[in-house]
């Protein structure tokens, strides 16, 4: 690299994407997405129903992962057929809508990790999208939120959990910057979630044993932080074995608590223990193990190591292929898009988008529903900063990404109720007293920086009491009901009843708002090509489409009415041609002074007009204002004005602000000067247009005014409004109607 790069490269170097790290592939370090030379050839040898060789390794040499997968993970009945199948042939089955999901899942059950890894490496990105559409377990897609903050503020956690539920998240994951705060966080988020919606699952991600304890006490309704790794060394470094994890998995189920495991490509490379294998092969071992230990689902797709995968060629594709592998093992797929993997908005969107359009059980295994700085997992791939982007993307593609729009008044009401509920429960249980200032700040806050009143010792003290007394969810429910929050108490009790039923232990289970279980059992994915599979109900489509920012012509009309003024009036029902050679006529469009009062740049029509008149005055010209009623075409309006003017020079001004200078002898679509980009205009610009029109009237050739240019997406911002304003203009056109003479009450 040159010490003195040229300007073009200096400029490119400053772009955000160049903050990301990109690695030269290095198989010895595990820095390779697919197909390292260190990956074994797929193999499976079975003798008397016992696996004696797995992916090139003899039974005597099995490490703990091989041993567990060999003993529990493979469908040996399907294995002979599955291991013999050509990998490209299997890849084609994945994208062939005529081959049902159940058939490819059956075959995958008989495939070793190396075999399945090799088959999925064949798929191109668009094929991954097709395969994921068919292979995810649950028909209805969903999404998971992170709700955390820097101070473990229980009031803010509750308000933000209610907000996340209002936006449609069906699982909420919290965690702690201070381990001792975990019980308080679990209680506050559970209460907040219950305020926001019935049936939202809540977890608190902490160390394995403490997390299990929280689950046993009923303080959380699912668990996810049960990590698997693809090599024995890293697995043991993580202080577990496949047998301890299998036992843990059963321990959760024994208490009626839903649980999934966590893995992700790049984790072993990040910890320096990839043993020369590719990320994808090691992840294939994790996913096979997840199935073997009896977990119902897997959170993967990089997770904390997503940026490691993102640093190598094909790495982002491998993250999605990992998710697909989970689906093929018949498990719930919580598909990453979790830890932020790039500083570039373009790259992170690109990483998520194929999964977003394919749909998964949980598109994000942790959408940061709070601001980046409040995310105690670290910033997510998607954050509160991006909520409206995500909702707009759902609307753009007509895709159900699991979220819905929420109105400001509704979210304000829910946040207040969540804060009140936590205050009431903590007070009644003797956990903490919160003052009014803290509560008001938490309701209004966009993040913990807006809650300076929060006291850091409060959650710690409350947590100690919850653990020591101990307080279970039954006491929390009792306190809610006693303090007037019966609805929320019922919702939380309903979640405890669901633990007794156990239906939500099945693969990919979530609850809808009627507390129906949607899982691989009750809501199996039945995609079989176009016209089949999940499609949003009409009501759900409305939730996707009706984002709060959308405006109708009627909305624009109402907005315009708020700027109505009496300053612009008709003074005569007609207008005669003038004879003063210094007279310039300003022609207004039909809606000016009738239905449109404010231009796109924010100035009122009267203000724009006032500047035009002032500019003409500066040049010593006289001016007349008329309204052209039979056309909304600005060229026609300007030409009509010019033909009425004694000087032969006219100004056309559309009510939305577009303006031009015209001359009586020009063709209608010609003009002398045009301000075409109305949103960028200013008082000064209209003044100069007036001045130039005056100079034209006097026979001079003024320097034409330039449209101001900017790098903003002017069209994205205004085109929808323009369509409405033009529709309003058209509604004011009366064919054959005469030109009217107008008077303007000038500004003081």
């Amino acid at each position, binding site marked *: 690299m040159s010490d003195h790069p040229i300007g073009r490269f200096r400029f490119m170097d400053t772009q955000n994407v160049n903050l990301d790290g990109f690695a030269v592939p290095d198989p010895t370090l595990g820095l390779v997405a697919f197909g390292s030379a260190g990956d074994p050839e797929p193999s499976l040898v079975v003798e008397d129903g016992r696996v004696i060789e797995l992916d090139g390794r003899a039974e005597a040499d099995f490490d*703990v992962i091989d041993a567990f997968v060999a003993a529990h993970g493979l469908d040996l009945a399907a294995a002979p057929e599955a291991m013999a199948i050509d990998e490209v042939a299997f890849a084609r089955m994945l994208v062939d809508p005529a081959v049902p999901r159940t058939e490819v899942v059956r075959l995958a059950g008989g495939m070793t990790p190396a075999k399945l890894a090799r088959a999925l490496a064949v798929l191109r990105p668009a094929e991954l999208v097709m395969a994921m559409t068919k292979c995810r377990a649950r028909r209805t897609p969903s999404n998971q939120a992170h709700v955390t903050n820097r101070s473990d503020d229980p009031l803010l956690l509750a308000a933000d959990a209610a907000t996340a539920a209002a936006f449609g998240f069906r699982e909420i994951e919290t965690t702690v910057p201070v381990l001792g705060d975990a019980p308080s966080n679990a209680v506050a988020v559970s209460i907040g979630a219950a305020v926001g919606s019935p049936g939202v699952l809540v977890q608190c991600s902490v160390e394995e*044993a403490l997390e299990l304890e929280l689950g046993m006490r009923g303080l959380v309704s699912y668990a996810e932080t049960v990590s698997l790794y693809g090599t024995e060394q890293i697995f043991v470094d993580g202080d577990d*074995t496949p047998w*301890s994890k299998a036992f843990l998995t*059963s321990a959760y189920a024994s*208490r009626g608590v839903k649980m999934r495991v966590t893995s992700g490509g790049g984790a072993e490379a990040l910890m320096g223990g990839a043993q020369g294998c590719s990320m994808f092969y090691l992840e294939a071992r994790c996913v096979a193990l997840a199935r073997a230990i009896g977990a119902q689902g897997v959170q993967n797709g990089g997770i904390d190591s997503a940026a490691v995968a993102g640093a190598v060629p094909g790495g982002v594709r491998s993250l999605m292929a990992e998710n697909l592998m989970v689906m093929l093992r018949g498990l719930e797929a919580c598909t990453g898009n979790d830890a932020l993997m790039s500083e570039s908005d373009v790259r992170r969107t690109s990483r998520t988008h194929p999964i977003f359009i394919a749909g998964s059980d949980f598109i994000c295994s942790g959408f940061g529903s709070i601001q980046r700085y409040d995310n105690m997992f670290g910033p997510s791939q998607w954050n509160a900063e991006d909520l409206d982007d995500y909702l707009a993307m759902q609307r753009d593609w007509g895709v159900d990404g699991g979220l819905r729009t929420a109105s400001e008044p509704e979210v304000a009401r829910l946040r207040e109720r969540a804060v009140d509920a936590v205050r009431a429960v903590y007070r009644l249980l003797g956990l903490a007293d919160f003052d009014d200032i803290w509560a008001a700040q938490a309701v209004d806050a966009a993040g913990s920086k807006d809650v300076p009143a929060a006291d850091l010792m409060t959650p710690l003290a409350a947590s100690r009491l919850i653990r020591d007394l101990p307080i279970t969810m039954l006491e929390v429910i009792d306190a809610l009901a006693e303090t007037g929050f019966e609805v929320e108490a019922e919702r939380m009790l309903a979640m405890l*009843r669901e633990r007794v039923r156990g239906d939500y232990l099945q693969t990919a289970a979530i609850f809808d708002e009627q507390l129906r279980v949607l899982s691989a059992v009750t809501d199996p994915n039945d995609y079989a090509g176009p016209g089949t599979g999940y499609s949003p109900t009409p009501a759900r489509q409305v939730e996707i489409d009706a984002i709060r920012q959308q405006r109708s012509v009627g909305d624009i009309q109402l907005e315009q009415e708020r700027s109505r003024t009496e300053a612009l009036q008709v003074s005569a029902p007609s207008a005669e041609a003038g004879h003063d050679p210094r007279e310039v006529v300003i022609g207004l469009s039909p809606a000016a002074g009738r239905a449109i009062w404010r231009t796109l740049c924010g100035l009122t029509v009267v203000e724009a007009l006032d500047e035009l008149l002032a500019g003409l005055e500066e040049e010593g010209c006289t001016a007349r204002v008329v309204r052209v009623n039979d056309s909304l075409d600005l060229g026609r309006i300007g030409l009509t004005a010019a033909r009425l003017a004694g000087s032969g020079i006219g100004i056309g001004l559309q009510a939305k602000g577009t303006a031009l200078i015209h001359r009586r002898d020009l063709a209608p679509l010609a003009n002398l000067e045009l301000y075409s980009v109305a949103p960028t205009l200013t008082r000064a610009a209209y003044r100069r247009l007036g001045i130039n029109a005056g100079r034209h009237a006097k026979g001079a050739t003024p320097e034409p005014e330039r449209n101001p240019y900017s790098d903003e997406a002017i069209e994205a911002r205004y085109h929808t409004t323009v369509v409405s304003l033009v529709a309003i203009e058209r509604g004011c056109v009366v064919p054959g109607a005469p030109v009217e003479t107008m008077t303007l009450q000038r500004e003081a």
Partner: protein
Amino acid sequence: MDPVGETGEVSRVRARSGTPVDQITLDGVLAGEVSLDDIRIHPDTLLAQAEVATRAGNAQLGENFRRAAELTALTDERVLAIYEALRPHRSSAADLDLIAAELDDLGATRNASLVREAARVYAARGLLR
């Protein structure tokens, strides 16, 4: 395929305490009549869920639920302690044998064989204490 809790005979599902699930009400909570055992899953329910999982094509999930059914008989403390004992380098072969015997005594035979299998592999892979 019907989920266990939604078969139209909801009252058939009972908590570990024996209380039918639809009798776990807010009034009961307020009257102090709902115990932690009333919000614990019954082993029979887990066995029924195991059937559902197996029929749905996931025998390993079914097996997990069967192990879980056995673990309902253990206290939280004991479950946490056995989990801890199964972590690497925590237990000797004899420790794991004792746990397996304890589990057998409780009728938790699937868990017992899981622990014995762990003991064998841990010995081979140097993961015993």
